[in-house]
């Protein structure tokens, strides 16, 4: 059975076995999605939120109409849950709103530049710089590069048109590259 069939069976019979299958299929992706919104080092909170998402999905399964893919519906719930948690929690890193999207990266504090980096160090620097990006850019880059979502899938998840997602990807990459340049990190 595919996801939509499982969801319909769950709506019809309420059989928890169908719900267990849906959890089994999607728990890893939901966890990663939430972690990509919260940022690295927040695995504990991400796991709690993953639980909350599936409890919510079980309670709201009657609202799934099958117009979109089940995974899109599920990821949108997960995204909203993570963003809502993020806005309530006190985060180590500041949350940048739309109004600061126009700021140049040089207006933020930077680490020591001109370091020589190995591939692993580059990966680590990329993560650090991602964490400094405004939340929307970081989320979209994570969903695209880490979750492997397509532009339309990201659009459905964050409730934005494809053009906006492409624009966030473009601007996010540009901003990330500036931060990496300022740290002296270059593509090898």
């Amino acid at each position, binding site marked *: 059975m595919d996801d939509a069939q499982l969801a319909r069976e769950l*709506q*019809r*019979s*309420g059989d*928890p076995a169908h*719900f267990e299958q849906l*959890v089994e299929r999607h*728990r*890893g992706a939901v*966890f*990663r999605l939430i*972690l990509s919104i919260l940022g690295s080092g927040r*695995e504990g*909170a*991400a*796991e*709690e*939120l*993953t*639980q*909350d998402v*599936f*409890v919510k999905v*079980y*309670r709201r399964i009657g609202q799934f109409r099958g117009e979109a893919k089940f995974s899109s519906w599920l990821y949108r719930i997960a995204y909203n849950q993570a963003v809502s*948690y993020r806005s*309530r*929690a006190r985060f180590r890193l500041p949350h940048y709103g739309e109004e600061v999207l126009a700021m140049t990266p040089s207006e933020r504090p930077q680490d020591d530049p001109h370091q020589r980096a190995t*591939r*692993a160090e*580059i*990966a680590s620097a*990329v*993560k650090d710089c991602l964490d400094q990006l405004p939340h929307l850019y970081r989320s979209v*880059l994570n969903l695209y*590069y*880490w979750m492997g979502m397509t*532009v339309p899938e990201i659009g459905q998840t964050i409730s934005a048109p494809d053009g906006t997602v*492409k*624009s966030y*990807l*473009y*601007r996010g*990459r*540009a901003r*990330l*590259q*500036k931060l*990496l*340049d300022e740290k002296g*990190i*270059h*593509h090898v």
Partner: protein
Amino acid sequence: MSELSRECEDFAGWLLESTESESPAWRDHLERCKGCRAQADAHSMLTSAFAAEPVPELSDAFESRLARRLAPELEIRPLAGWRRAAMVAYIVVSLILLGWSLRAVELPTIDLSAPWVPVAALVAVPLSLMLAIRVSGWLPAGLRPRGPGIVAA
């Protein structure tokens, strides 16, 4: 992205469909265009950074904890689908049979002023209500048991 030249827009579109960040077709443009060079470099670094990223795992207790949280809701799961239809059919058929069989029976007359009548009603009414709720799974929304609540912020 609206201020981009046509060529830059085409490159951005190509980057979305490609797993590579460079191609001979774009070499000339990338040599002259700093913006697209930055896009290509960021694309490469993001791709390789995430390729090296270990996939995070949920803890082993995830499923048992989720099952515990959902247990109260599963216990009162309402009958649905064919089970609900079968239950309704059973009740209807039973009532018809009961009515039909009672036609020939002379029922004893009950003295409604007898002291045991209100006592019996007090016991029978809540009992039958509880039984109906148990069988149908129906509960007013405000009385439904909930999980331990979402994680505190």
